[in-house]
Protein backbone atom coordinates (compact mmCIF):
# COMPACT_ATOMS: atom_id res chain seq x y z
CA UNK A 1 0.00 0.00 0.00
CA UNK A 2 2.91 2.28 0.91
CA UNK A 3 4.50 1.60 -2.49
CA UNK A 4 1.31 2.54 -4.37
CA UNK A 5 0.93 5.71 -2.30
CA UNK A 6 4.57 6.57 -2.93
CA UNK A 7 4.22 5.98 -6.71
CA UNK A 8 1.00 8.08 -6.74
CA UNK A 9 2.81 10.99 -5.09
CA UNK A 10 5.87 10.68 -7.33
CA UNK A 11 3.77 10.56 -10.52
CA UNK A 12 2.18 13.78 -9.31
CA UNK A 13 5.48 15.50 -10.10
CA UNK A 14 5.60 16.65 -13.78
CA UNK A 15 9.38 16.31 -13.82
CA UNK A 16 9.34 12.75 -12.46
CA UNK A 17 6.53 11.83 -14.87
CA UNK A 18 8.40 13.23 -17.87
CA UNK A 19 11.59 11.32 -17.10
CA UNK A 20 9.78 8.12 -16.09
CA UNK A 21 7.60 7.92 -19.19
CA UNK A 22 10.16 8.31 -21.99
CA UNK A 23 10.66 4.58 -22.67
CA UNK A 24 6.98 3.73 -22.21
CA UNK A 25 5.83 5.76 -25.22
CA UNK A 26 7.94 3.84 -27.74
CA UNK A 27 7.06 0.48 -26.19
CA UNK A 28 3.33 1.22 -26.26
CA UNK A 29 3.50 2.51 -29.85
CA UNK A 30 5.34 -0.60 -31.07
CA UNK A 31 3.23 -3.07 -29.05
CA UNK A 32 -0.07 -1.42 -29.99
CA UNK A 33 0.91 -1.03 -33.64
CA UNK A 34 1.85 -4.72 -33.88
CA UNK A 35 -1.42 -5.77 -32.24
CA UNK A 36 -3.41 -3.62 -34.67
CA UNK A 37 -1.51 -4.91 -37.71
CA UNK A 38 -1.96 -8.58 -36.79
CA UNK A 39 -5.57 -8.10 -35.64
CA UNK A 40 -6.53 -6.17 -38.78
CA UNK A 41 -4.88 -8.72 -41.09
CA UNK A 42 -6.67 -11.53 -39.24
CA UNK A 43 -9.98 -9.69 -39.40
CA UNK A 44 -9.68 -8.65 -43.04
CA UNK A 45 -8.15 -11.78 -44.55
CA UNK A 46 -8.49 -14.82 -42.30
CA UNK A 47 -11.85 -14.38 -40.52
CA UNK A 48 -14.81 -15.91 -42.42
CA UNK A 49 -17.60 -13.63 -43.73
CA UNK A 50 -20.68 -13.23 -41.50
CA UNK A 51 -23.74 -15.32 -42.39
CA UNK A 52 -26.09 -12.28 -42.47
CA UNK A 53 -23.88 -9.21 -42.95
CA UNK A 54 -21.37 -10.72 -45.38
CA UNK A 55 -18.02 -8.95 -45.49
CA UNK A 56 -19.31 -5.65 -44.09
CA UNK A 57 -19.02 -7.12 -40.57
CA UNK A 58 -15.22 -6.66 -40.90
CA UNK A 59 -15.82 -2.96 -40.07
CA UNK A 60 -16.48 -4.22 -36.53
CA UNK A 61 -12.74 -4.74 -35.98
CA UNK A 62 -12.17 -0.97 -36.04
CA UNK A 63 -15.63 0.28 -35.00
CA UNK A 64 -16.05 -1.63 -31.73
CA UNK A 65 -12.55 -0.94 -30.28
CA UNK A 66 -12.66 2.77 -31.19
CA UNK A 67 -16.17 3.23 -29.74
CA UNK A 68 -15.35 1.33 -26.55
CA UNK A 69 -12.06 3.12 -26.09
CA UNK A 70 -13.65 6.55 -26.63
CA UNK A 71 -16.01 5.80 -23.72
CA UNK A 72 -13.12 4.59 -21.55
CA UNK A 73 -11.08 7.72 -22.32
CA UNK A 74 -14.00 9.88 -21.18
CA UNK A 75 -14.42 7.76 -18.03
CA UNK A 76 -10.69 8.18 -17.32
CA UNK A 77 -11.10 11.96 -17.79
CA UNK A 78 -13.90 11.90 -15.20
CA UNK A 79 -11.68 9.97 -12.74
CA UNK A 80 -8.87 12.48 -13.38
CA UNK A 81 -11.37 15.30 -12.82
CA UNK A 82 -12.31 13.78 -9.46
CA UNK A 83 -8.63 13.42 -8.52
CA UNK A 84 -8.00 17.07 -9.45
CA UNK A 85 -11.00 18.34 -7.50
CA UNK A 86 -10.10 16.36 -4.36
CA UNK A 87 -6.28 16.48 -4.32
CA UNK A 88 -5.51 19.35 -6.76
CA UNK A 89 -3.05 17.02 -8.50
CA UNK A 90 -1.53 18.85 -11.49
CA UNK A 91 -0.98 15.66 -13.48
CA UNK A 92 -4.71 14.86 -13.34
CA UNK A 93 -5.39 18.12 -15.18
CA UNK A 94 -2.54 17.37 -17.59
CA UNK A 95 -4.23 14.02 -18.32
CA UNK A 96 -7.59 15.62 -19.18
CA UNK A 97 -5.88 18.20 -21.41
CA UNK A 98 -3.99 15.46 -23.28
CA UNK A 99 -6.77 12.88 -23.44
CA UNK A 100 -9.71 15.08 -24.55
CA UNK A 101 -8.57 15.59 -28.18
CA UNK A 102 -7.58 11.92 -28.43
CA UNK A 103 -11.02 10.91 -27.14
CA UNK A 104 -12.70 13.27 -29.62
CA UNK A 105 -10.80 11.69 -32.53
CA UNK A 106 -11.67 8.17 -31.33
CA UNK A 107 -15.34 9.17 -31.11
CA UNK A 108 -15.21 10.60 -34.65
CA UNK A 109 -13.59 7.34 -35.81
CA UNK A 110 -16.38 5.35 -34.13
CA UNK A 111 -19.07 7.56 -35.69
CA UNK A 112 -17.48 7.48 -39.17
CA UNK A 113 -17.02 3.69 -39.12
CA UNK A 114 -20.56 3.31 -37.78
CA UNK A 115 -21.93 5.41 -40.64
CA UNK A 116 -19.97 3.34 -43.18
CA UNK A 117 -21.18 0.13 -41.54
CA UNK A 118 -24.78 1.34 -41.41
CA UNK A 119 -24.93 2.07 -45.14
CA UNK A 120 -24.80 -1.56 -46.36
CA UNK A 121 -26.48 -3.15 -43.30
CA UNK A 122 -29.18 -0.67 -42.18
CA UNK A 123 -29.64 0.96 -45.58
CA UNK A 124 -28.80 4.33 -44.01
CA UNK A 125 -25.69 5.88 -42.53
CA UNK A 126 -27.40 7.67 -39.65
CA UNK A 127 -30.50 7.28 -37.48
CA UNK A 128 -31.37 9.51 -34.53
CA UNK A 129 -31.67 6.62 -32.08
CA UNK A 130 -30.37 6.58 -28.52
CA UNK A 131 -27.04 4.83 -29.22
CA UNK A 132 -25.91 7.05 -32.11
CA UNK A 133 -27.20 10.22 -30.45
CA UNK A 134 -25.53 9.49 -27.10
CA UNK A 135 -22.21 8.82 -28.90
CA UNK A 136 -22.65 12.17 -30.70
CA UNK A 137 -23.20 13.76 -27.25
CA UNK A 138 -19.91 12.13 -26.16
CA UNK A 139 -18.16 13.90 -29.05
CA UNK A 140 -19.66 17.23 -27.96
CA UNK A 141 -18.55 16.55 -24.37
CA UNK A 142 -14.95 16.07 -25.56
CA UNK A 143 -15.27 19.31 -27.59
CA UNK A 144 -16.69 20.96 -24.46
CA UNK A 145 -13.66 19.92 -22.36
CA UNK A 146 -11.32 21.40 -24.99
CA UNK A 147 -13.34 24.59 -25.53
CA UNK A 148 -13.84 25.28 -21.82
CA UNK A 149 -10.10 25.13 -21.20
CA UNK A 150 -9.47 27.58 -24.07
CA UNK A 151 -12.22 29.93 -22.87
CA UNK A 152 -10.90 30.44 -19.32
CA UNK A 153 -7.57 32.32 -19.15
CA UNK A 154 -6.66 31.46 -15.54
CA UNK A 155 -5.17 27.91 -15.57
CA UNK A 156 -6.42 26.94 -12.08
CA UNK A 157 -9.98 28.11 -12.83
CA UNK A 158 -9.88 26.36 -16.21
CA UNK A 159 -8.68 23.11 -14.61
CA UNK A 160 -11.42 23.35 -11.95
CA UNK A 161 -14.19 23.98 -14.50
CA UNK A 162 -12.97 21.27 -16.89
CA UNK A 163 -12.83 18.76 -14.01
CA UNK A 164 -16.43 19.52 -13.07
CA UNK A 165 -17.59 19.16 -16.70
CA UNK A 166 -15.69 15.84 -17.00
CA UNK A 167 -17.42 14.57 -13.84
CA UNK A 168 -20.91 15.75 -14.84
CA UNK A 169 -20.60 14.37 -18.37
CA UNK A 170 -19.75 10.86 -17.16
CA UNK A 171 -23.50 10.24 -16.79
CA UNK A 172 -23.49 9.81 -20.59
CA UNK A 173 -21.31 6.66 -20.38
CA UNK A 174 -23.96 4.31 -18.86
CA UNK A 175 -26.50 5.89 -21.23
CA UNK A 176 -24.33 4.88 -24.21
CA UNK A 177 -23.71 1.42 -22.73
CA UNK A 178 -27.32 0.56 -21.93
CA UNK A 179 -29.03 2.54 -24.71
CA UNK A 180 -29.38 -0.65 -26.79
CA UNK A 181 -31.14 -2.40 -23.88
CA UNK A 182 -33.28 0.47 -22.59
CA UNK A 183 -34.50 1.94 -25.88
CA UNK A 184 -35.72 0.71 -29.26
CA UNK A 185 -32.75 1.06 -31.58
CA UNK A 186 -31.39 -0.28 -34.86
CA UNK A 187 -28.02 -0.84 -33.17
CA UNK A 188 -27.42 -4.44 -32.12
CA UNK A 189 -26.90 -5.25 -28.40
CA UNK A 190 -23.43 -6.07 -27.07
CA UNK A 191 -22.00 -9.38 -28.35
CA UNK A 192 -19.42 -9.58 -25.54
CA UNK A 193 -20.39 -9.08 -21.89
CA UNK A 194 -18.75 -9.97 -18.60
CA UNK A 195 -21.87 -11.79 -17.40
CA UNK A 196 -22.38 -14.27 -20.25
CA UNK A 197 -20.69 -16.21 -23.02
CA UNK A 198 -19.89 -14.13 -26.13
CA UNK A 199 -22.50 -14.48 -28.90
CA UNK A 200 -19.80 -14.09 -31.54
CA UNK A 201 -18.04 -16.99 -33.27
CA UNK A 202 -14.54 -17.68 -31.88
CA UNK A 203 -12.84 -17.29 -35.28
CA UNK A 204 -14.34 -13.76 -35.45
CA UNK A 205 -13.73 -13.00 -31.76
CA UNK A 206 -9.93 -13.36 -31.64
CA UNK A 207 -9.10 -10.63 -34.20
CA UNK A 208 -11.56 -8.35 -32.38
CA UNK A 209 -9.80 -8.92 -29.05
CA UNK A 210 -6.40 -8.44 -30.67
CA UNK A 211 -7.44 -5.19 -32.34
CA UNK A 212 -9.07 -3.95 -29.12
CA UNK A 213 -5.93 -4.66 -27.06
CA UNK A 214 -3.74 -3.17 -29.83
CA UNK A 215 -5.80 0.03 -29.96
CA UNK A 216 -5.88 0.33 -26.15
CA UNK A 217 -2.09 -0.02 -25.96
CA UNK A 218 -1.45 2.33 -28.89
CA UNK A 219 -3.79 5.02 -27.55
CA UNK A 220 -2.20 4.69 -24.09
CA UNK A 221 1.06 5.57 -25.85
CA UNK A 222 -0.53 8.52 -27.67
CA UNK A 223 -2.04 9.92 -24.44
CA UNK A 224 1.27 9.44 -22.62
CA UNK A 225 3.11 11.27 -25.45
CA UNK A 226 0.48 14.05 -25.40
CA UNK A 227 0.88 14.32 -21.60
CA UNK A 228 4.66 14.67 -21.99
CA UNK A 229 4.04 17.47 -24.51
CA UNK A 230 1.61 19.19 -22.13
CA UNK A 231 4.12 18.92 -19.25
CA UNK A 232 6.79 20.57 -21.41
CA UNK A 233 4.38 23.35 -22.46
CA UNK A 234 3.56 24.12 -18.83
CA UNK A 235 7.09 23.80 -17.49
CA UNK A 236 9.03 25.26 -20.46
CA UNK A 237 10.45 28.10 -18.40
CA UNK A 238 11.75 25.87 -15.60
CA UNK A 239 15.39 24.96 -15.18
CA UNK A 240 14.92 21.20 -15.68
CA UNK A 241 13.19 21.67 -19.09
CA UNK A 242 15.90 24.09 -20.20
CA UNK A 243 18.52 21.57 -19.07
CA UNK A 244 17.02 18.61 -20.99
CA UNK A 245 16.50 20.73 -24.11
CA UNK A 246 20.09 21.90 -23.97
CA UNK A 247 21.42 18.36 -23.42
CA UNK A 248 19.94 17.15 -26.73
Amino acid at each position, binding site marked *: MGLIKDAFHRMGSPRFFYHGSSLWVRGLYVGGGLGLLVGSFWGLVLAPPDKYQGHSFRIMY*MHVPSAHLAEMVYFACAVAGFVYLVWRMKMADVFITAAAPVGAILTMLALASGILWGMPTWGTGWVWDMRTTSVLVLLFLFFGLMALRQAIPRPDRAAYSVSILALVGVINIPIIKYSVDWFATLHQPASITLASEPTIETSMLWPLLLNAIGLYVFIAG*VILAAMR*LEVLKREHATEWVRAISKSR
Partner: protein
Amino acid sequence: MTLIDEFYNWAMMDGHGVYVWSVYVISAVTLVVLGAWPIRAEGRLRARVTNRVDEDSGA
Protein backbone atom coordinates in the same frame (compact mmCIF):
# COMPACT_ATOMS: atom_id res chain seq x y z
CA MET B 1 -9.80 -17.55 -62.76
CA THR B 2 -6.46 -15.74 -62.59
CA LEU B 3 -4.75 -14.63 -59.39
CA ILE B 4 -5.63 -11.01 -60.21
CA ASP B 5 -9.32 -11.91 -60.57
CA GLU B 6 -9.22 -13.71 -57.22
CA PHE B 7 -7.57 -10.71 -55.53
CA TYR B 8 -10.08 -8.34 -57.17
CA ASN B 9 -13.03 -10.42 -55.95
CA TRP B 10 -11.57 -10.59 -52.44
CA ALA B 11 -10.92 -6.82 -52.39
CA MET B 12 -14.45 -6.06 -53.63
CA MET B 13 -15.93 -8.20 -50.80
CA ASP B 14 -19.24 -8.80 -52.61
CA GLY B 15 -19.84 -5.06 -53.00
CA HIS B 16 -18.95 -4.21 -49.36
CA GLY B 17 -15.29 -3.53 -50.13
CA VAL B 18 -15.76 0.21 -50.57
CA TYR B 19 -17.19 0.52 -47.03
CA VAL B 20 -14.71 -1.86 -45.39
CA TRP B 21 -11.59 -0.41 -47.04
CA SER B 22 -12.74 3.16 -46.40
CA VAL B 23 -12.96 2.41 -42.67
CA TYR B 24 -9.50 0.82 -42.57
CA VAL B 25 -7.85 3.58 -44.64
CA ILE B 26 -9.47 6.33 -42.53
CA SER B 27 -8.46 4.50 -39.32
CA ALA B 28 -4.87 3.90 -40.45
CA VAL B 29 -4.33 7.52 -41.54
CA THR B 30 -5.98 8.84 -38.35
CA LEU B 31 -3.88 6.63 -36.05
CA VAL B 32 -0.61 7.44 -37.84
CA VAL B 33 -1.32 11.20 -37.65
CA LEU B 34 -2.49 10.86 -34.04
CA GLY B 35 0.67 8.97 -33.07
CA ALA B 36 3.02 11.38 -34.85
CA TRP B 37 1.39 14.61 -33.59
CA PRO B 38 2.65 14.69 -29.94
CA ILE B 39 6.12 13.42 -30.87
CA ARG B 40 6.62 16.08 -33.58
CA ALA B 41 5.12 18.83 -31.42
CA GLU B 42 7.44 17.86 -28.53
CA GLY B 43 10.44 18.01 -30.87
CA ARG B 44 9.45 21.50 -32.08
CA LEU B 45 8.86 22.72 -28.52
CA ARG B 46 12.22 21.42 -27.31
CA ALA B 47 13.94 23.09 -30.28
CA ARG B 48 12.27 26.41 -29.33
CA VAL B 49 13.39 26.05 -25.71
CA THR B 50 16.94 25.23 -26.88
CA ASN B 51 16.99 28.37 -29.06
CA ARG B 52 15.79 30.47 -26.13
CA VAL B 53 18.46 28.98 -23.85
CA ASP B 54 21.10 29.78 -26.50
CA GLU B 55 19.80 33.35 -26.84
CA ASP B 56 19.81 33.82 -23.06
CA SER B 57 23.38 32.56 -22.78
CA GLY B 58 24.46 34.80 -25.69
CA ALA B 59 25.59 31.89 -27.85
